[in-house]
């Protein structure tokens, strides 16, 4: 073979080889890059969702936590968590957002964001005081009603409390009991007989929660708004809960209790309750029925109600209950309730009689509200977010 032809042929083959191998390498590189991109995107997504999960756990431990986490190393990347109070679907909630970044500062950098909305620092607006009553209140004994916000150790938290007592009727009291409230900045105030930041008499209910009894409480009494926004006093557990922003059609709470979501119970005979109470405990007594003595140890939402609106809790005793109590009637509370009590009935019972105390606890009320709302929306899943995106 002519040496020149041989050289040309070899050169041609080499050029073809280079071209083919370049193409092959390029395709392989693209395939690897595709896999890398997918992996890095998933990694960034995992970082973001894990960051949100960490934020949710922190809020679960401390409902007031809003600090966020500016930067946290996670899975070879960086997570940045922010927490803020916001609105979702018309009611307030806590938004936990996390930005997950992987390969920061390189051409391969991927950023993903995850968001979860949690039930916020919201309780039903109908629960305007530590004790909400649909009739006159007569305070007796050493009973304490404290509308200041408390933590789990009964320490007072500033500026997040509510009224001590809110009633559509009047309030009469002995000197031995205490009523405290922090519905305004001044904090605890023992001049509870006249201070409308502590006690509201003759209140009228509006579902925006702004009616605290008016500005005329200094005279001790004729408080209560009369605006066009006034609504009937909520007379059922579902209508009370509906003031949290979610709508609970009549019978919803009962059906959740019957589903046993989150340990919920539904009984017509209180002796069949299992303790400690948790989730929604729905006690439907027969007409005129009385639960006596009332052992309410546990947490969650306790409902004592029947179709004739006369289911009665008598001599509440035993351990502490943490959460929301809604009942037709209640006489003598000799235990501690960390949360709030809503006395729906119109009969003049004595919810503020006894040796016990009601310590408002926004965190417990919020937890109970969240459980109820989740029970309605998710068949009682223990997951605490309203929505993820």
């Amino acid at each position, binding site marked *: *073979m002519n040496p020149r032809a041989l050289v040309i*042929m070899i050169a041609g*083959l080499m050029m*073809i*080889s280079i071209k*083919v*191998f370049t*193409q*092959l390498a390029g*395709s*392989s590189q*693209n*395939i690897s890059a*595709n896999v890398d*991109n*997918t992996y890095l*995107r998933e990694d960034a997504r995992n970082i973001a969702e894990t960051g949100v999960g960490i934020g949710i756990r922190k809020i679960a431990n401390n409902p007031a936590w809003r600090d966020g986490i500016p930067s946290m190393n996670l899975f070879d990347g960086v997570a940045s968590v922010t927490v803020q109070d916001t609105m979702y*679907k018309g009611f307030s909630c806590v938004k936990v957002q996390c930005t997950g970044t992987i390969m920061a500062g390189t051409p391969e950098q991927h950023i993903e964001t995850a968001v*979860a909305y949690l039930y916020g620092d919201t309780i039903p607006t109908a629960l305007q005081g530590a004790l909400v009553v649909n009739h006159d209140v007569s305070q007796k004994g050493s009973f304490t009603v404290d509308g200041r916000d408390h933590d789990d150790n009964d320490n007072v938290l500033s500026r997040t409390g509510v009224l001590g007592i809110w009633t559509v009727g009047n309030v009469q009291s002995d000197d031995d009991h205490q009523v405290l409230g922090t519905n305004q900045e001044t904090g605890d105030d023992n001049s509870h007989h006249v201070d409308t930041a502590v006690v509201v008499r003759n209140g009228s209910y509006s579902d925006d929660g702004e009616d605290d009894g008016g500005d005329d409480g200094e005279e001790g009494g004729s408080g209560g708004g009369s605006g066009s926004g006034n609504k009937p006093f909520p007379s059922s557990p579902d209508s009370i809960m509906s003031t949290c922003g979610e709508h609970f059609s009549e019978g919803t709470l009962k059906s959740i209790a019957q589903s046993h979501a989150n340990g919920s119970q539904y009984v017509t005979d209180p002796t069949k309750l299992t303790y400690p109470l948790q989730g929604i405990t729905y006690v439907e007594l027969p007409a005129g029925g009385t639960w006596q003595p009332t052992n309410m140890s546990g947490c969650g939402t306790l409902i004592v109600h029947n179709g004739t609106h006369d289911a009665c809790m008598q001599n509440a005793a035993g351990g502490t209950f943490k959460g929301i109590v809604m009942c037709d009637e209640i006489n003598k509370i000799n235990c501690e309730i960390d949360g709030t009590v809503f006395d729906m009935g119109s009969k003049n019972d004595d919810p503020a009689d006894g040796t016990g105390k009601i310590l408002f606890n926004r965190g417990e009320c919020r937890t109970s509200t969240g459980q109820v709302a989740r029970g309605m*929306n*998710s*068949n009682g*899943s223990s*997951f605490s*977010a309203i*929505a*993820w*995106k």
Partner: protein
Amino acid sequence: MRTIMEEAGGIIIGGVIFLTLITLFSRIGDTARAQSFKDAAQESTTNASDIMEREFRLIGYGYTDTTYILKADSASITFRADLNDDGIVDTVAYGLSAVVYAGQNTTAPRILQRTPGHGLAAPVATGITKFALDYFDRSGNPTTTIANIRSIRMSMISLADADIDSTHPGVYWERTIKPKNMR
């Protein structure tokens, strides 16, 4: 005479070497082309997975009813979610297009398409020969009951539109999504 035989032998050996090289380069070329098509198929699949994963993750988002999934069978799904976060719940369906050509068998490449509730179907990926959906309940057991679905496994095979050595280069993709809003 000897010179002629040497030249003939050289031509034959050179020819064999040349044919071998041609064959070798042809094979390498085929591999390179297959690789390129595989790359294209993979890119098409990952693009489709980006779109689908994002939307599947959002199933039920912004929707207060618990009927997040309207239809779920082995080859298509229709679900609801506020995908744009604009307060309006969207209805979206995913599935393969109908057979395009008369007589085309069901395993022929088709288009994976996304159909919004009010709108025309849009292609998400082409050359899809298999798009399968499997559904699992809270415990991870297969289920066909829509209300019990908690996770979805998607799998698809995407083939390149090229015939190389009687084979179609392609990729298989599988993903299991657990939409967090379906609880």
